[in-house]
């Protein structure tokens, strides 16, 4: 049981590349913290620094009130689940879980109790004698979790643990991890590039980009009030529509001109001929539709050519707008439609996309 605090943590490699550019994060005891961001944003590096597998160039990492910058991984009282599980291929499931305990000189009966308990929780009871090679991906994943659980550490670290599983299993394991974490009430830090995993797992979500923290907070709060255009387009699928407020169509409706970028989530649009007071209406030509059952995604282009705005990962091509409508509807391709969003659902950002402007 411990809180984890990162204070102005930096990581610079000998070749001068700065992977982590000063990160401050505070994870309270028992919280589930998710680091999310595109590949190369430094989230895994940050996790590995907490684990002690990467050195810390400057700043402090504090686990349970103890600065661990110079502490060996084994002595930090943490356990890690790796992306490729990193099970010992020559050891049985039992020994995989027991190995870390034996190395710490724990008495045999105690090891036995702990491994049996973990096996019971993870439903691995019948597989204790098997080798990792004889297990399915999901089972290996459980063993990797078991290896972390038996240690009863202060902190769990997860490095994209579900990315090697197929979609269905991923969702099942995601729920299990969440339940397990709640039950053990152990502080956890979880790295993923999957925003859905991030949203569903996190008590506290850390969105990273280019070695920096873009936004920290409750996942829903981040979803509702993204601090930058990067966060706006990264969190949420399909991504938020971003458009320049300089375009005539929008400028005339919006009035005030401090902001440079307007963001509207696909689900906040409705197809209507009316323009809500203070809201924004757009004329679109339907280019493509995706019907996924419960909902339909309409891909439209705006009548006038859009002025390009800063390109972020996952962002739409300029001029394209995604609208989410109920699954029962599907406008034909080529049709001209009008969509509108109310004032409260508009997100306004400065020209560089770095600052959110509250209307």
């Amino acid at each position, binding site marked *: 049981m411990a809180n984890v605090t990162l204070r102005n943590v930096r990581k610079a490699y000998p070749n001068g590349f700065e992977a982590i550019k000063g990160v401050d994060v505070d994870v309270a005891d028992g919280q589930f913290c998710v680091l999310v961001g595109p590949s190369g944003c430094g989230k895994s590096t940050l996790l590995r620094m907490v684990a*002690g597998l990467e050195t810390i160039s400057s700043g402090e990492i504090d686990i349970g009130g103890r600065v661990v910058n110079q502490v060996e*991984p084994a002595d930090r009282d943490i356990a890690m689940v*790796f992306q490729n599980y990193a099970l010992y291929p*020559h050891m049985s499931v039992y020994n995989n879980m027991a*190995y870390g305990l034996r*190395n710490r000189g724990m008495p045999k009966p105690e090891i036995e109790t702990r491994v049996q308990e973990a096996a019971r929780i993870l439903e691995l009871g019948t597989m204790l004698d098997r080798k990792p090679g004889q297990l399915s991906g999901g089972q290996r994943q459980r063993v990797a979790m078991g290896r972390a659980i038996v240690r009863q550490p202060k902190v769990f670290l997860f490095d994209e643990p579900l990315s090697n599983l197929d979609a269905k299993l991923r969702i099942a394991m995601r729920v299990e991890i969440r339940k397990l974490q709640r039950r053990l009430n152990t502080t956890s830090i979880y790295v993923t590039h999957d925003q859905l995993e991030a949203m569903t797992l996190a008590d506290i979500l850390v969105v990273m980009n280019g070695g920096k923290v873009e936004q920290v907070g409750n996942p829903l709060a981040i979803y509702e009030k993204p601090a930058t255009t990067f966060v706006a387009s990264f969190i949420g699928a399909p991504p938020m529509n971003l458009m320049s407020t300089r375009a005539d169509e929008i400028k005339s409706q919006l009035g005030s001109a401090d902001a440079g970028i307007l963001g509207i989530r696909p689900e906040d649009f409705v197809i209507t001929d009316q323009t809500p007071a203070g809201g924004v209406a757009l004329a679109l030509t339907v280019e493509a539709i995706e019907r996924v059952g419960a909902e339909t995604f309409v891909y439209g282009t705006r009548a006038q050519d859009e002025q390009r705005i800063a390109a972020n990962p996952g962002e739409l091509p300029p001029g394209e707008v995604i609208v989410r409508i109920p699954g029962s509807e599907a406008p034909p391709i080529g049709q001209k439609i009008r969509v509108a969003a109310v004032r409260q659902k508009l997100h306004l950002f400065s020209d560089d996309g770095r600052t959110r402007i509250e209307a």
Partner: protein
Amino acid sequence: MVEHRRFGNLLPHLVLLAGVAVVAFPVYLAIIASTHDNTVIANGQMPLYPGSHALETYWNTIVSGAGRTTREPVGSMLMASFIMAVGIAVGKIAISILSAYAIVFFNFPFRMATFWTIFVTLMLPVEVRIFPTYKITSDLHMLDSYSGLILPLIASATATLLFRQFFMTIPKELVEASKMDGAGPIRFFFDTLLPLSVTNIAALFVILFIYGWNQYLWPLLITTRDDMQTIVIGIKKIIDVKDALTEWSVAMATAVLAMLPPVAIVVLLQRLFVKGLIETEK
């Protein structure tokens, strides 16, 4: 590829059989010769069927030695060869696995330089460096000893290279997981790396055992005592006699006996050997 021509495989098989015959015939001849009385072969009538003196010849060869040459029985030569071959194989594996471990898993100054230095010794087999090596061995008073036979031959670039390639396929996360599990470098080596290397070790053992067993030049130089003779040298001495008939039956029996241990090693470790050479997935 589905091809079912009834006689399509005939020609390739005939060629292969001819090849087998060419390779196997001398071996067959050696076995046959070792079962006949010495005079039969000395008369120049080499039969192609087994004779009746097999037990006698092998008894003489193993226990009492060839009559008119050296009195050293082959039994002790086999022992000497065996100790040397096992010593070389085990020594080479122990040294090379440790050096590969250092090169792959540790960061130290001049790591690559060290690796290339080891690599370059591939160009310096014992025949090339025989003079300085002999001098050193002699200065260390290791002539006529097993350590003299074994130690100068146990550094191995090939084995180091093989282990290095294998170690590089081991996922980095496995090392990290061990670190988290509180296993230091020595524990990681014995608990994880060594068990994973078993097939590689077996494959190398086969190759290196045969390499050691077949050594000729080095044992010839370094041993003078009869009881330190290896069997490969023994064969030569039995054939090379002055003022007497070569005891061909004994010589052939010795040759057959010299073949057996390497064959046994290959047969015993065959499965591991093949696995060690072809296995890539870990």
